[in-house]
């Protein structure tokens, strides 16, 4: 499993999206999010975007007020994950148009939908924006 979880957290440390690819209990999730947020949000721009945590790595990137945190296995390619985050943001940007925190808050299910298209079982399976968005657009049209 390459990707273990994807989190979106705002500057205040509130979780805006949480997607796990391995089963964790609620307590485990809460503890993990707390630890990670504490660790990553304290870092400055001049520090690198990779943090080792427990037995895996966190690759994170900040867009405006939102932090995108991806937990990956140790041998995962960090730069590729950064690109993945960027791809995710671009995809959301294309869909919502100038995406912001509120879009993700109010359309969480769509953000999840995009992630589902992109990542399966912790593996990145789709990297084309058009392909990722096609089912969502179809669903919106039909409803």
């Amino acid at each position, binding site marked *: 499993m*390459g990707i273990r979880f994807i989190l979106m957290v705002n500057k205040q440390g509130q979780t805006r999206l949480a997607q796990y690819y391995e089963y964790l209990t609620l307590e485990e999730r809460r503890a993990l999010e707390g630890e990670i947020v504490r660790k990553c949000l304290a870092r400055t721009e001049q520090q690198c975007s990779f943090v080792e945590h427990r037995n895996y790595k966190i690759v994170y990137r900040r867009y405006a007020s939102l932090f995108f945190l991806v937990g990956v296995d140790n041998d995962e*390619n960090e730069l590729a994950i950064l690109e993945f985050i960027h791809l995710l943001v671009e995809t959301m940007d294309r869909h919502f148009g100038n995406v912001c925190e509120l879009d993700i808050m*109010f359309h969480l*299910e769509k953000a999840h939908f995009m992630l589902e298209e992109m990542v*399966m079982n912790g593996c990145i399976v789709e990297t084309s924006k058009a392909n990722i968005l096609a089912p969502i657009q179809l669903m919106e049209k039909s409803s």
Partner: protein
Amino acid sequence: MAGSSIMETLFQRTLEDLIKGMRLQLIGESAFISKAMEEIRREIKSTDLHTKSIALQKLTYLNSLHAADMSWAAFHAVECMSSSRFAEKRVGYVAASQSFNESTPVLLLITNQLRKDLTSVNEYEASLALECLAKIGTVDLARDLTPEIFTLLSSSKVFVRKKSIGVTMRLFEKYPDAVRVCFKRLVENLESSDPQSLSATVGVFCELAAKDPPSYLPLAPEFYRILVDSKNNWVLIKVLKIFAKLAPLEPRLAKKVVEPICEHMRRTGAKSLMFECVRTVVGSLSEYESAVKLAVAKIREFLLEDDPNLKYLGLHALSIVPPKHLWAVLENKEVVIKSLSDEDANIKLESLGLVMAMVSESSIVEISRVLVNYALKSDPEFCNEILGSLLSTCSRNFYEIVVDFDWYVSLLGEMSRTPHCQKGEEIESQLIDVGMRVRDARPELVRVARSLLIDPALLGNPFLHRVLSAAAWVSGEYVEFSLNPFELAEALIQPRASLLPNSIRAVYLQSVLKILVFSVNSYLSQTETLADLEPGVQASQMENSEASDLASVRAPIESEHDEAFNPGVLDRPSADISVEDIGTVADGDGQTSKFVSFRKNGFTRESIVNLLNLVEVAMRPLSGSLEVEILERACNILGLIEVLKREMPAQFQSEMVLEKEELEVLELIKLMDDAFSEELGPVSTSAQDRVPIPDGLVLKDNLADLDEIMGDVKLPSSNSFSLESPYYAERMDPASSNVQSKEDSEASNESTSLLAEHRKRHGLYYLPSEGNGTISNDYPPANDLKSGETTNQDDPEDFVRLTAQSLVSKKKPNYAKPRPVVVKLDEGELVLAVPKKQDSRDDLLSGAVRDILLGDDAVKLSSSIKGKEKVNMDPLDSKENMHDMEHSRHRKSSSRRSKQRPHRKERGQTSPEKLGMEKEEHGGKVKSKSSHRHGRQKSRQKAEGSSDVIVQTPVIPDFLL
């Protein structure tokens, strides 16, 4: 009921309303959530699926972001899943994949629903089911739905196909037999022209290959084609990851792929792909000099960038570079050293690791000095990182890089004085270890121990207690090297020692006893020799020591009066009582120290009496201690003093007279001294193995019943483990007293955990329980550079490190001062490495994959040969297996694994039939199959020909390379 349902439908809050309300937060978040949950609980019971689904959606939202419990709603999720409307169905699926786990009871209900959706003509419904299965697939679901996935793997709809490919990983993981059904179709997708399926398939193989690389070697040609043809960086990165795993297994493959990888490295503009190439080359293709050169050049580019990410990755890549290419690190020395003061802790850590990698025999002194100074200035966390890596680097492979042990011992002393030092435990074990292994270092060791012991400031730092314990032990054990044993004794009984934990105090007391015995023995044997000499000579000798006597004659009288030991002596700067001054103490101030009258080999009657008195005074209060270890030892010492005093009155009256009874004392003391001066050596972790088990001794009896009977009986003191010399017991003491003291407070049923802890701390006395686990604790295993091939290293990295070190050590520069002998244990001693426990499921999976890829013939060969076991060669094992062709390639060293044998055989017998069916189904594949078989036979011949380590030649068709 119907009425309320309509009302609910009309006035139900949607998810959006919920989020908006939450943002307003009129009543506070937790209150709002509990109110919303109440609402949801009511709404979700509605018979109207729409209402239910909206409630479920809200619940899913709250669960995901606000950690609200939703396990109770599992059945509602199942209901929504069965809705005919897509939106509702989707809500159900999302809820299920988010909250279901192995123990969810309603899981049994969804099999049919999943099957129905998987076969649905609507590709989006199928995709919902696939995504859900990928997340929550259990063994049962995987088994029951394998046929459906098999069908979808060749679906004409790419959308569904790529997702079904993603699911296969979960399927294989949970239900390895699915491999027999689905694997071929998966491989077909590897040849697919459709980029989406290809990308998904490569991702799956990347994960699979990471778990068990050798099984996937036969697919190397396909991967190679992708490596050369693909333009998609995502895919290339995954393929590179696969090759990084496969290349070390098959040199011909490495040779083949190195050029295309370099080509990518030169051409690509994408940093991620370039980094992956670099990592693959330095990690797995380091044989190829030119490729490594290119990779290091790229690393340098990374390092020179301002971007902290690239810098970090550059340093990280350098740290993967194997030690034989140390030049790569040296080339970038400046950057590495500069990064040591980077503001990012992660970058600092990486560069610290690299600095340690650059350390050599010639540079260790310099680097250590710089680093210890740097540690003084850094924050506590990094300070300890520095100390920790220094300690582990220096002690690596029996202090291989340390030439000057006097220097190293004083470095240990210096490290323990670093304010933030928390590495007490490690320093403790190294002080003792050096003492035992390096005879020449002992005088310096005692000196360092002395300076640690007499410093009252150190007693206040709990992290250093372990160091002090080692110092106390060293000063007692090697007291003969001490210039002033009395001073040591004084330091060990200083009042501030009461700050120490009991276990360490016990070590202090034992050392006092040793020093006492040593001093008295030295004195007695000295007088004995003197008595044999003629009086004239004696007198002149006495005159020689007159100066010191002057001081000491007065002292005992004073000390008789001053009951309490005067701590003022110790509080003086250590220079006051340092050894240099000893000869010239008899100046006007007789108070400087009562014991400075001691001179090398110059024990006087007075000084001994003084010592006895002083120790007696210090022991008295301890003889009432509640802690048994301390109590017992204090009483022992007091008893000894009493005997000495009673037996030696003649001695005290006149030095010249040697009475009969005094000889008895002499004998007693001699005996004790003999016992104490028996040399201690390091003990191999496998020593116990060589002790034959006596007949009739049952070691593996189940003692669980005893718990009931003896529930409240104390655990026997670990002293019972002592073997031959009293030192064993002595060394154990800290732990045993811990055990006892803890038992006072803890329930006795926790004794097992205490024992475990004890085991952990004193792994030396036990058989290694798991691999190298205990080795790092105290004493390295009995191995040597030369025995590098025979020692069992658990994983390849260790092996690589070991061999690399031996390479490095070959170019030892000549030193003026010869390196002291470091005691190592006999070679050829094999530490029985218990192989890592493997997930039996992984075993099954790799077995199944091999069966498919290699056909029925190779079933015999197919087993759980893991990459990591390749180097873990045990000559005994291979001998054992040599005659057993069927298992010649199984590396089995434990009974656990051999238990699986019959099981595997059984599978081996059944699989050909299954495969036969497969062959019929896929007639078209026969051609490639036969070529596979060709390669297989070759490798089989090889396996028959030689049964040594290299038999594990991966199976790979020749013509493809």
